[in-house]
């Protein structure tokens, strides 16, 4: 089977290994080291993002035109472009200082102060769920790139139950959420079954299923069952009032119960992985399928179950999106959640609580990005670039260390754990 390289890219001679430190201290040191690398990776990614913003800003490009006449202009134009963009991002994600003073003066409500935080949490909720989906699959040795498709199918089923069935209040929303999880689970199951039965690599099948799901959604939005009466564009009926996830902070803020579902899901995944037999089996298969098979575990069954659960979690993301935020189905309902979730899972080092934190960070970036685009015109795609850069940097800790001249730590980065190829 695969041999993960016995040394990571930092070539430390074995003699430099300290005398056996007590295990908790070593583990704590490793954790803080990882946290430091993560924080620095975020910083470097933001810097690169800033460069991108500055270099594509029209004022800066104009200033380059007369660089030798007034070189300081380039710097000041760059600085203003960058600071405007990032300030807007902060205001959109965390808090807008002006709103605090306005609220203190009684000119605005206190809920407007919490608006940005509410947006961050609302954006982060589906990212956390889908990120858990990808993490769970990673732990089982599978790459679930099909989050996008699973979110879409989950949204379809949840939305359908939401507007087509009419059940008593609490039952309706529960049924809708469950329907979403089942829909996503089935979509993941297809890929898992294909992998188990035919060995088809899940990267390709899940990506193809993504596109199929998107076209399926487009088709359904044109059928009378789904399409909103009176509209000819691709939009579905509205979800019933009692199928919507309840608001948590009043109706002025978009914060809804989806975040509670996400946190519960994280707790369940954590419990599953660390304390249940099934979780142990999944992790064993993920670490070394051949050894697991020799030990008598059914690797195929593990793959199928892993993809089913992962699909279910992504379907939950779709449910929260439709039942908590959008209240209707549109072609953009999945809003790139599936791909963002991959970066969330990687940043969260495939651990449930890490995924929650990573989801919150990326939710903040994205919520702030919306404000940034509205306020300064900076396209929100820069957030995608920053996310990808963060993940690339944390996947290569030696790179960050060489930039910041940190001491090398024991233990590898996020990438050194799984090194597999097409042959499994």
């Amino acid at each position, binding site marked *: 089977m695969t041999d993960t390289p016995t040394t990571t890219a930092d070539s430390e001679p074995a003699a430099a290994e300290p005398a056996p430190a007590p295990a908790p201290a070593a583990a704590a040191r490793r954790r803080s080291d990882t946290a430091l690398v993560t924080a620095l990776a975020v910083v470097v990614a933001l810097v690169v993002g800033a460069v991108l913003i500055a270099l*594509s800003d029209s004022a800066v490009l104009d200033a380059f035109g007369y660089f030798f006449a007034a070189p300081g202009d380039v710097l000041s134009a760059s600085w203003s472009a960058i600071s405007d963009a990032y300030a807007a991002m902060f205001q959109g994600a965390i808090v807008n200082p002006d709103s605090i003073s306005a609220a203190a003066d009684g000119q605005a409500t206190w809920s407007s102060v919490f608006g940005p935080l509410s947006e961050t949490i609302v954006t982060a909720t589906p990212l956390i769920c889908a990120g858990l989906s990808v993490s769970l699959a990673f732990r089982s040795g599978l790459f679930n790139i099909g989050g996008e498709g699973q979110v879409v199918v989950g949204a379809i089923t949840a939305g359908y139950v939401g507007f087509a069935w009419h059940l008593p209040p609490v039952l309706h929303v529960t049924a809708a959420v469950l329907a979403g999880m089942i829909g996503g689970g089935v979509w993941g199951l297809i890929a898992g079954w294909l992998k188990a039965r035919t060995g088809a*690599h899940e990267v390709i099948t899940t990506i*193809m299923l993504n596109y199929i799901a998107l076209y399926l959604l487009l088709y359904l939005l044109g059928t009378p069952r789904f399409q909103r009466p009176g509209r000819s564009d691709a939009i579905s009926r509205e979800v019933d009032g009692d199928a919507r996830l309840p608001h948590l902070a009043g109706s002025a803020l978009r914060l809804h119960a989806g975040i509670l579902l996400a946190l519960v899901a994280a707790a369940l995944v954590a419990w599953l992985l660390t304390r249940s037999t099934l979780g142990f089996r999944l992790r064993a298969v993920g670490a070394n399928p051949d050894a697991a098979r020799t030990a008598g575990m059914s690797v195929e069954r593990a793959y199928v179950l892993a993809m089913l659960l992962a699909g279910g979690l992504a379907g939950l993301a779709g449910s929260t999106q439709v039942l908590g935020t959008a209240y209707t189905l549109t072609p953009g309902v999945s809003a790139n959640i599936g791909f963002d979730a991959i970066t969330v899972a990687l940043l969260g080092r495939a651990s449930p609580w890490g995924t929650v934190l990573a989801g919150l960070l990326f939710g903040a970036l994205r919520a702030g990005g919306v404000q940034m685009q509205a306020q300064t015109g*900076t*396209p929100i795609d820069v957030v995608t*670039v920053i*996310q990808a850069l963060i993940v690339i940097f944390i996947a290569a800790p030696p790179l960050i260390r060489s930039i910041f001249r940190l001491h090398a730590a024991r233990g590898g980065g996020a990438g050194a754990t799984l090194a597999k190829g097409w042959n499994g």
Partner: protein
Amino acid sequence: MSLAAQLPRTAGARLSRRYAVGGLYVILGLLSLLAFGIGTDSGKDARFGLALEGARLSMPDLVLPARVTAIVLSLLVAALGVLRVVRAESARLASWLTGLVIVSLLAAFLCWSVAGQEVSLVGIVQGTVFLSIPLVLGALSGVLCERAGVINISIEGQFLLGAFTAAFAGTVTGSLWVGLICGCLAGGLLGLLLAVFAIRYLVDQVILGVVLNVFALGLTGFLYDRVLQPNAESYNSPGIFNTIKIPLLADIPVLGPVLFDSNIFLYLTYVLLAVVHIGLFHTRWGLRVRAVGEHPTAADTVGIRVLATRYRNVLYGGLVAGLGGAFFTIGSVGAFGKNMTSGKGFIALAALIFGRWSPFGSLAAALVFGFADQIQLVLTSIGTTIPSQFMLMAPYLATIFAVAGLVGKVRAPKADGKPYVKS
């Protein structure tokens, strides 16, 4: 797979696989009989045009009684299924049978959908070849990278960067050739990133590829919104390469206009196919590359520089993928649009696997996928009962069937995806 996992399965697996696949063919044949054979009204003819306007030698249209032809083809497929079960197993025969089954089913489907109407068969073939160009180039990029042992999932990202840079550079400099070269270089740059992170920093190559795709998507989207879209005239209107007609060869009936009357990208593809095939299988360089991909430790022992070879190959792969990306803008549409590749890079990857990591195998696979893409265009234009969104799913469904049906039997280069650490 390890030996322990393989031993109990070999003999029994071969037998049951024969029954499974043969049975599948029979079932498909019967379904086709019902849907395409009996489902077609009798008396209708399917008319396939075989010549293009203005060709020197004109050919009469191929007129087939739709229902009868579809029935015959379906029965053929069922018969092939029986043959597969009965006849002794040989890999070569099995591949031929698969090919025949696919072609027959597609032909039956065509008869059914074109019944009572007319389509230009030459047009379909021409469109298929045209749409397959980026898939072939992407697959060639994959061949170069993966034969050396580095998995290249970021073909999609290299396409996007190549398309973007070709459009941008082509417009800014006013020269399509400069755009072409810049597109290649952009793909090469992403390849270099992939190489550094995969080979030097030992990042997992599948994850790295996916993340690089996200990065490329975000970067091109950002720059498109920021720079290209506001000033489309100055930054996003490179134009398209003209078609070049090769004098004598282009007049061959049916195949001539398809193969010899297209733009530079098709001819470059021919050249690259030949170069990669001959290079990989008939030169010392190719032998070294394949050795590095199969058993890097042994190659290292003999003196081959493993890491340098991998770096070089991934760079070449990136350049070829950049060329494939340039096709989207300066070879086809003429302007860049956000996410304009929409998954073609992954289909190219599937073509690579379907084609067993060989240039000409990938070519055949790419043609099948290109055909799936083309057929949905044709059928949407002549009108068909199948909703358009399902037609649009066709290439992706085809990819899944290909990967699911065949990957069990194909084998990647042994060290594919495993970073090499000198020990």
